[in-house]
């Protein structure tokens, strides 16, 4: 853990970085879940492989994004724990 970040406010910086990441991911979450329903008729005029796009975003499109968001957050945070010298061995 040689690249551990220094400074007295290390934990504050960790929390700030975490919050920033959460905001970004929540913005994406909101965009895929709540924007398409507003424009569903317009989106439905675009049809790909039989799927009207507005319908598709509700039935499958947004779900794929949700799964990716969670795995990305887990990967990024688990890496960040190491960068900030945090571990969790306590049971």
């Amino acid at each position, binding site marked *: 853990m040689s690249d551990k970040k220094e400074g007295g406010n290390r934990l504050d910086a960790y929390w700030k970085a975490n919050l920033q990441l959460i905001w970004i991911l929540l913005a994406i979450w909101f965009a895929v879940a709540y924007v398409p329903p507003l424009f*569903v008729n317009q989106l439905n005029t675009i049809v790909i492989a039989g799927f009207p796009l507005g319908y598709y975003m509700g039935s499958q499109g947004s779900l794929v994004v*949700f799964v990716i968001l969670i795995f990305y957050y887990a990967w990024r945070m688990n890496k960040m724990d190491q960068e900030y010298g945090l571990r969790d061995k306590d049971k």
Partner: protein
Amino acid sequence: MFQNMTLSKAYGLFTIGFLIFSFVLLLLEVTIGLSTAIIGWAFLILTMGLYAVIGIMSRTKVLDEYYVAGRRVPAFFNGMATGADWMSAASFLSMAGSVWLLGYDALAYIMGWTGGYVLLALLFAPYLRKFGQYTIPDFVGARFGGNRARGVAAVCAVIVSFTYVTAQVVGVGLIMSRFMGVPYELGVVIGLSGVLLCSFLGGMKAVTWTQVAQYVILIVAYIVPVTFLSLKLTGFPIPELAYGQALQEITRLEKEQKIAKGYIDPYNEPLTNASAVAAVTQINNQFGAGWPVPTPKSVPPAPITPGVGGWQGTPWDMMALTFVLMIGTAGLPHILIRFYTVPSIRESRVSVGYALFFIFLLYFTAPAYAAFSRWEILQNVVGLKIGTVDDGGKTWTTVLAKDGKPLPWVLNFSKTGLLTITDGNKDGILQFSEIGINADLIVMSTPEIAGLPYTIAALVAAGGLAAALSTADGLLVVIASAVAHDFYFRILNPKASAQTRMNLGKAMVVVAAAAAALAAMPRLALIVQMVSWAFSLAAASFFPIVLLGIFWKRANGTGAIAGMIGGMAVTIFYMVNNYLDPNFNILGISHLSSGLFGAATNFALTIVVSLVTAPPPKEIQDFVDNVRHPRDEDVVESKPAAAPAE
């Protein structure tokens, strides 16, 4: 105890074994004509026997194992267990049916019940794992300083979980009566004994390992029939990719048959109180309650479509429902406690990912299931002749196949009361609007409607049973721990021995199961309605205060109690009023989404009341700092969480 490799091997072998078992039954049915009763019982005995074996193997006398599976469940398997815990009779049986029935609007369930996991992953799971106690009221009690907040939270947990478990029991009875030919009441008892064998002896530990097996069964049971259907209708065996064609065919057939309400078109569901009218009438008939039956109303007033062309409302109701289902999901105690069972914070983060992935496999498939089923019915069932058939001294209206014989499934499902055929325009030909089908029936009946072998239908029944039982298991643990741990041990008798607490926990599992069975016996429509309300209640009680508890140090106990009570009150007020009279609404939002207003009230009250009262003491602010990050290597931390040791 359990090694990762042996675990993977054991469950891998189990999956292969289950597939072979199903395949052999299928072969026997097709070749030597094995009877449907034998096939049904073979599935039932195999699956229930398996749950019992796992339950007995995982019996325990250690509290840590009884409540949180010893915190040794690897992320991957916790993900599977969470999947089974989460996917109930509603996900398995009703969800695709709702999409079938309502079209686009029902996608609120698909998005809502998956998007909630993003909130869980980002906002709750790692922090609850760091806190690491037994129950959600534990967290509320520790964070909001005391037994009052804990008590309110425990009451909310019991209300939410009990309504939910009762609905699972109804689902179990329904499946058993349809597929095993046993009376509904006996079906409930057989199903519940399966639940008890598992959760009574082994608590969370047994529940976890049974849920992993139940996940395998339910996902196989869901994907196999729709794959056959896709193959039959499109010649392509990946339904999730192929149902675009089904959507096109549905649109074409709707135009051809002049069906006004389009499957793809959004927001064409009016607000009605039809379900309230039905529920009150049923209660009056069964108990002679004499409650005033509300006048049937619809907003906008029916008929909403004078001609073909359709009516379109606003997106607000669907968006509100999606949002409430999301925050309700993230606030459900039986899901939240699953993240106490993993060994570390790292694993808790990854585990939410696996959980959603395993849930996603089913939810990603559900719209395909719905679309293929609707296509099949529009294409091959609508347009057939209507006839009658005598059975059990009654004459039933049924549908005749092309050869003039009555279709066997129509009678079978008519007898459950979930399917009615009426020749509305008396032309002797079946129109789409003349099929009165309950959403719960779509998944169960589609294999038979499409003429697939009975083994597939029995497999679906086994899957539905796995879904209902696994969820019931998880809920019983929550109810038992709320009473034995939160009320008895934390509030009434903090000196109770581990042995006493364990015995009380086990007793509570039995009491809760028996109470749920009693509540399920009259088969009230109101019970099923209550599940969809459970999300609103969870959204209005837990979500706001757990969120503020972690992300806002200034939130205090007085604020949280005011928030929970106020949130619940507003939710129930809006729910009851809109349920009885749809003219009572804001932006056309239905009672199903009433948690939106409750959650907003909870947030506002918690914030305002916290600000006008004293900030929480230093220990609690330190406690919040503590849950926000994994252990710091440079600092020797005092033991986290202000809870006394065992």
